[in-house]
C-alpha cells in the first residue's frame, strides 16, 4: 500500500528526515513513536504534501503511484487522509458544505457519482453518531470556536466520512482528556478494516492502549532506529526513549 525508501527532507536548511524506510501493507496499523523533534510530524506532512518541506532524496509510493509527485488533493483523492495535530479553523466556511465538497471531490476523482443532498445527509448523520457528535456541528463553520476535543473528534468524523485507504493520525491524542481520548479511539477502531491501513504518530504510549498497533517504530533524528510489535511501545513506556536513542546514536 505504502512504501517509503530512503526518504530525506529538509525544512529550510535543516535536514529533518535522513533516509527513512517504511512499508505498510493493507489493514496494518503502524505506530510511529519518538521524542520531540525526531521528525514524526514532518513525516506526516511530507506524505500528505504540505508546502514548506523540500524532499532531497528517496521515494514514496502509494497504491503504485509516485506519491511525492502528486498534489495534496490528488493524494487525498487516491485515499490518503491526514488527521491534523492542529486542525485549522476556517471561519465562514460551513461544515456541511465543506464535508460535501470534500466527499464529492473524492468520489468524482474515483469516477463515482456525486451524492445528492438526501443521501449525503443520511450518511453524515450516521457517521456523527459514531463520534458522539451533535447535529449542530453541521451548521457551524469548520473547527471555528471548537474545543480541542471537538476539533480532534471532527478530524476522525471526517475520516469516517471520507473512508481513506491510509490514514495518518498526527498526535491525535495531544490535548485530549481521558474521555475524549476514549471517544476518538473508539471512532478510529470502528474504522479498522482489512483494507484500511493507519499510521498512528504519537509521543506517548497511552494512545496505543486504545488503538492497538500491529507494528511500532521508533523514529529518532530522522530515521527509524527500531521496529517491533506492540510490546516495543510498552518497553519504551518503562525505559523511556533514552534506552534506544543512546544505542541509535551510537550505531
Amino acid at each position, binding site marked *: 500500500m505504502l512504501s517509503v525508501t530512503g526518504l530525506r527532507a529538509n525544512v529550510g536548511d535543516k535536514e529533518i528526515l535522513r533516509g527513512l524506510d517504511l512499508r505498510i501493507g493493507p489493514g496494518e496499523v503502524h505506530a510511529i513513536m519518538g521524542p520531540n523533534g525526531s521528525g514524526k510530524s514532518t513525516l506526516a506532512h511530507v506524505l500528505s504534501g504540505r508546502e514548506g518541506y523540500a524532499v532531497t532524496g528517496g521515494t514514496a509510493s502509494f497504491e503504485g503511484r509516485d506519491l511525492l509527485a502528486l498534489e495534496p488533493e490528488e493524494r487525498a483523492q487516491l485515499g490518503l487522509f491526514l488527521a491534523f495535530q492542529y486542525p485549522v479553523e476556517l471561519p465562514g466556511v*460551513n461544515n456541511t458544505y*465543506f464535508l460535501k465538497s470534500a466527499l464529492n471531490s473524492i468520489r468524482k*476523482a474515483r469516477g463515482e457519482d456525486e451524492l445528492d443532498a438526501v443521501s449525503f445527509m443520511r450518511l453524515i448523520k450516521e457517521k456523527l453518531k459514531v463520534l458522539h457528535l451533535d447535529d449542530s456541528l453541521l451548521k457551524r*463553520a469548520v473547527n471555528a470556536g471548537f474545543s480541542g476535543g471537538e476539533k480532534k473528534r471532527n478530524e476522525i468524523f*471526517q475520516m469516517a466520512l471520507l473512508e481513506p485507504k491510509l490514514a495518518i493520525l498526527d498526535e491525535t491524542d495531544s490535548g485530549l482528556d481521558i474521555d475524549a481520548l476514549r471517544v476518538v479511539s473508539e471512532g478510529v477502531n470502528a474504522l479498522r478494516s482489512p483494507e484500511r491501513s493507519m499510521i498512528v504518530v504519537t509521543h506517548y504510549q497511552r494512545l496505543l492502549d486504545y488503538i492497538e498497533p500491529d507494528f511500532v517504530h521508533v523514529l529518532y533524528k530522522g530515521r527509524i532506529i527500531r521496529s517491533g510489535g506492540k510490546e516495543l511501545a510498552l518497553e519504551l513506556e518503562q525505559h523511556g526513549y533514552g534506552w534506544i536513542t543512546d544505542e541509535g546514536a551510537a550505531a
Partner: protein
Amino acid sequence: MSGELATWLGAATPNGSPAWLEAWRTSARERATALGVPGSKQEAWRYTNPRRLFEQAFDEGAAVLAAEALAPLLVEGLEADRVVLVNGRYAPEHGRLGALPEGVRIDSLARLLAEDPEAVRPHLGALADDPAALFPALNAAGGADGLVVLLAPGARLERPLELLHVTTGERPTLAQPRHLIVLGEGAEARLVERYVGAEPSIAHATNAVLEIDLAAEARLDHERIQHDSAESFHLSTLYLHQQARSRYQGLNIGLGGRWARTDINTRFAGPGAECVLHGLYLSGDGQLIDYHLDVDHAVPDCTSVELFKGILYGQGRAVFDGRVFVAQDAQRTDAAMSNRNLMLSERAEIDTKPQLEINADDVKCSHGTTVGQIDPQMLFYLRARGIPEASARRMLCLGFAEEIIGRLGDEALRAEIAALVGDRLEAAPLD
C-alpha cells in the same frame, strides 16, 4: 467646463413647477457649475480621477424596459414588494406593490412633485446639504425622478420593499435618481436597493442620491446591492439622519461597475441611536470600487459599527476612506471602524484609510485595517481533504465574505450574492 457638465445638469425644470423647486434646482445648477469637474489634487478625490467620466457622452435614455428583459434581473425567491426604476425613472408597469397599510406612502418623486409637491418639500434636499459635493448637486440639477417612501409615526412595512434600478439602452445613458426615505417616530421598514445593468458591455452611468431621515425610535434595515454592468459608472451618495434611539442597519454589497463610488454620510441628531454599516466589495481587472464613509457622532450616547471587507483580484483596485467624527460633547460614544482586505493578486491595489477624530474624553472608539492573502494553512487543510486548489481558494474567499453575506435579511438574497461572488471568483485569473 459647463460643456462637460451639460448632460448632467439636465434640461430646465418643467413649466408650472413651484417656485421653491425651481429655486432649489437653479441653486444646485449654479453650485455644480462653480465646483466644476474635480481634480485628483482635492483630498476627497485623491484616489480617483473622475475626469474620464465627464469625457464620455451620455443619452438621457428612455424609461422603457421590456418585461422579458426584466425577468433575468430579478432575484429568484425574494419575497418583497417591488418598485422598478429604469434609467432613473419610475416604471410603475414593472412594480409589484400590495395594498399599503395606513400611514405608508410609496410613490414616484416626479409624480409627487407634479401632483403633491408639499408632501416632499420638507424632505427634498433637506439632508443633502454638503456644498462641496459635486455629484449630489448634479443630481439635484439634472435628476427628475426617484422613489419616495414616507412612513407616518408607528407605521410599519409588512413586507420588505425592493427598489430595483435598471440602466438600459443601446447607447450609454445617464440616470440620476433621488430617493427620499422618511420614517416617522417608531416606524419600521426593510429596504432592499439593487442596481443592475441590462447590457453588460455598455458604459451606462448612475448618479444616485438617497436622503434617509429616521425619527426617534424608527428602524430601517437597508441592503444595498450594487451589481451594475461591468463597463458602467456607479455613483451613489447617501445622507442619513438619525434621531434619538433610532436604528439603522446598512449592508453595502459592491460588485459591479468599472468605477463605483459610494459615499455614506451619517449624522446622529439624538442620543441612544445606533448605526451599523457593513460592506463587502469585490474588485477585479480594470475595476475601481470606492467607499467613503463619514460618520458624525454629533451627540452623546450613540453607537456606530463600520465593518467593510474586500476581495481584490487581478488588477482590481479599491478605496476605503472612512472617518468617524466624535464631537466635543458626544460623551459615551461607542464606535468601531474596520476594513479588512483579502488580496488574491500581487497586482491588486487597496488604499485604505480608516480615521477617528475624537473630541470627547469619555468614549470607546477603535479602528483597524488588515490587508492579507489566503492563509496557506487553511488552503492546505482543504486540499488535504481532496478539494482542488481553485475550489479551495473560492471556498476560503466565500468564507471571508460570509461574515457580511450572512447578515443579508433572507436566504434568497444570501444565495444570490454568494453565487454572484462565487461566479466572479471562478472567472478570476489566478496569479
